[in-house]
């Protein structure tokens, strides 16, 4: 093997501008053939942009791309596919109603007699493929019936079916349980053993340590370093990524919980197909504590949040704050009674993306005397409030009050939401995936904001799929499985493996 062919992918001094914003400023990336290479950076650092350029979704303003030593002009994804590059996106692109096999062959169907779909042969091919790479899937299961981890395997198989040699995984672990993550790491090692090259986009340091050989760090569009993962610590990676020392452990004092202020009693919720998603669920939250609900996506979290916020009706049971029953009233009533919510999907539920930042700060309070007199908006008061909040919560760029909120990065969008919700000083803050898709720096900021809110004598109900977050931030941890709470712990009583087992439906270990 000569020196040139040693690298499967080489990207040299890539520049990319969006408007006048420089998203990538002379970024280099060299990925060795047959290796797992992590691409690490904060949100908005440009990792996904760089990969979209490699996959032909964007065109660079300047710079060179070499695949297996050959210069290639990545005009569009078809060119990337020709060069055996595949990408598994963060949000899967699967047809829910199709089976696994149908999804895998979609776009490259197996046919006989020119035009007749040969599903039997397709199934056989899928089975062979899944055995070769140790990716267990049931070819006949429908996508809507299988777990997220399995769906991800389908996405990977889809790429392999197309003969991919270089596989890009965009934030592959965001939705997986610890057990599924270790399976994925095994799969990745299997693939490289078979000569494939993998690039993984992530901001999770632990997984880089577990999976990758090399790691390239970019920060604000600039190339920082490429390191041999074995020779660095997580702390070193974090500092390189953020550009300053970061505290990976959440610092907080012990909780000092008082009387119960929020309680859910025997709550049952049906979805629109009349299937019970939350079953006889009870929970109480005391003043001055953070209660965390751990669980895998799809075990009733969404329904629970929608019921508390009155976006959906409950079938039976009570939800009350300070003795006032709130179930089946209106979102407005819930907010007025002192529950504010950070929704899971900030772009769908949290923000009006096309509104300027300042208008997003007043979404719930636009009609209050502070911002409106005789139904006319007080533009000056609104701008002043926005500018103060932007300063207090360090939203960047600083002069964004009149810019549409969609122009901000994910972390800054989330800061806008947190600032807005905390400005109501809610008795109970319902935080559903408050740090979803955010980088270390923003996560640290948001966790501190939550703890500060608790320390000022309020309560927080934290619902998250991120185990680290639940373990680090919560004073009390409940495990949600199949719409029920299956276990409860105080902080420090439990580790992530035990939680992971319970979340997957395992039994609680009784003391030996």
């Amino acid at each position, binding site marked *: 093997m000569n020196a040139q062919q040693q690298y499967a992918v080489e990207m040299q001094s890539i520049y990319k501008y969006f408007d006048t914003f420089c998203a990538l400023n002379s970024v280099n990336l060299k990925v060795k053939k047959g290796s797992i290479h992590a691409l690490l950076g904060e949100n908005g650092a440009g990792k996904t942009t760089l990969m979209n350029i490699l996959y032909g979704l964007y065109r660079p303003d300047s710079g060179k791309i070499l695949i297996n030593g050959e210069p290639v002009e990545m005009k569009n994804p078809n060119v990337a596919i020709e060069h055996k590059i595949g990408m598994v996106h963060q949000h899967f692109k699967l047809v829910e109603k199709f089976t696994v096999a149908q999804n895998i062959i979609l776009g490259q169907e197996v046919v006989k007699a020119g035009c007749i779909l040969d599903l039997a042969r397709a199934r056989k091919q899928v089975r062979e493929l899944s055995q070769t790479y140790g990716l267990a899937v049931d070819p006949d299961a429908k996508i809507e019936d299988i777990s997220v981890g399995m769906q991800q395997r389908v996405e990977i198989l889809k790429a392999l079916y197309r003969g991919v040699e270089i596989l890009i995984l965009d934030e592959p672990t965001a939705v997986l349980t610890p057990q599924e993550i270790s399976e994925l790491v095994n799969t990745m090692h299997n693939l490289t053993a078979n000569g494939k090259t993998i690039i993984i986009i992530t901001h999770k340091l632990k997984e880089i340590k577990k999976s990758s050989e090399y790691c390239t760090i970019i920060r604000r569009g600039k190339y920082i370093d490429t390191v041999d993962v074995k020779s660095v610590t997580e702390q070193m990676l974090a500092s390189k990524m953020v550009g300053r020392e970061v505290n990976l452990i959440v610092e907080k004092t012990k909780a000092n919980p008082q009387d119960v202020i929020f309680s859910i009693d025997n709550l049952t919720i049906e979805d629109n197909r009349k299937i019970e998603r939350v079953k006889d669920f009870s929970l109480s939250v005391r003043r001055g504590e953070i209660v965390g609900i751990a669980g895998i996506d799809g075990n009733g979290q969404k329904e629970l949040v929608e019921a508390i916020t009155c976006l959906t009706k409950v079938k039976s049971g009570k939800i009350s704050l300070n003795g006032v029953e709130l179930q089946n009233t209106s979102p407005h009533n819930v907010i007025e009674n002192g529950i504010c919510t950070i929704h899971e999907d900030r772009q769908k539920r949290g923000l009006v993306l096309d509104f300027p930042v300042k208008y997003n700060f007043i979404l719930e309070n*636009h009609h209050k005397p502070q911002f409106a007199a005789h139904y006319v908006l007080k533009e000056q008061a609104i701008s002043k409030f926005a500018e103060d909040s932007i300063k207090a919560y360090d939203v960047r760029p600083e002069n964004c009050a009149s810019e549409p909120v969609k122009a901000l990065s994910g972390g800054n969008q989330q800061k806008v939401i947190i600032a807005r919700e905390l400005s109501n000083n809610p008795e109970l803050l319902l935080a559903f995936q408050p740090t979803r898709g955010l980088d270390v720096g923003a996560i640290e900021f948001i966790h501190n904001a939550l703890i500060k809110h608790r320390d000022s004598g309020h309560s927080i109900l934290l619902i998250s799929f991120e185990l680290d977050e639940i373990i680090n931030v919560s004073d009390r941890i409940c495990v949600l499985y199949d719409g029920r709470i299956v276990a409860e712990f105080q902080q420090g009583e439990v580790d992530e493996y035990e939680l992971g087992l319970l979340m997957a439906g395992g039994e609680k270990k009784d003391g030996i």
Partner: protein
Amino acid sequence: MGSKIAELLDKTATKIILAIVLGFIVGALALAGAGYDPVASYAMMFTSIFSSPQNMIQVLILTTPNILTGLSVAFAFKTGLFNIGGEGQYLMGATAAVMVGGVFNLPPVINVLVIILAAVIAAGLYGALAGFLKARFGIHEVITTIMLNWIALYFNNYLISVPGIGLKNTQYSFPIQQNAWTNVLSSWKTSSQGQVYLAAHPTLNTILLGTDINYGFIIAIVVALLISFLLYRTTFGYQIRAVGLNKDAAEGAGIKVKKNIVMTMFIAGGLSGVAGALQMTGTAPHALVTLATQPGYGFNGITVALMANSSPIGCIFTALLLSGLQFGGSTIQMNLGAPSEVVNIMIGVIVFFVAVASMFTMISERLKRRRIKVAD
């Protein structure tokens, strides 16, 4: 230089003007293709309007209902609703105006206000019905408003068939009482004193007696300003736009989405209703007429709103453009034999290019990128 062009290209108004220019170019090509001189045709369209004050007034009279139905469609767009019901709402407004204006004899000015109010309520409720069906049962407003258009049309025709409302052996209902007409100097110009004066002043004579010159245009502009204020300065406008841009976020923040949908459709309907009322008070025969087909103002409103990119103030200008083109189109047919349909081609092209305005954004970005490269 390049940067200035790039910035200019990013402005909505520039995009719309460019779309209009493109519309004229494509219209010219169509004319040339059909064997007519485009320059002569455009010159004819232009001079036919601006050569005589009478024709200019005529265009303004045509513009009035188009501004209001345009506002009606644009307003509904802001909540994410597509109001195709301008036709029916216009007719409901016209019906209410004639019923109230024909029966009651109220003092001047007050009578016009009462007529407009009645039209707003009738047409507003008619629009709100579609809003209610959407909010309560999830029935798409495009479907309901189209059907409501036909119900309004036949309701109008039915009323004319009712003895006491329809005049015997005519296609007309009873008219609005003359003191409620919004025509300029409506009673003076027919008085003997007025007749004598006008006979001595031929220009004024053609304007006052040759057209239905009325105050409607001014009212329509005032309404456009009010709607702009309502949308961009009030809490209600804030809510409407929030619902239109992201229903889920608005709902999560405690804004009552369903109530907003119904209210929006009430106001959208009311705006088309004002168009109907002003048409009845301002133009002959000041009465309902048996219709074989929709009057067309509601559909004009869709074009007006699309060309204006749903800006209320923009609707004033695009309604003027549309009415001018329609008026000019008829003159080239009369005088040059060129097909007036070319106007429809132009309007279609304009709407198309406003809709794909992102294309101009793309060009603007290209220009900016080139500039950055030069800077490097």
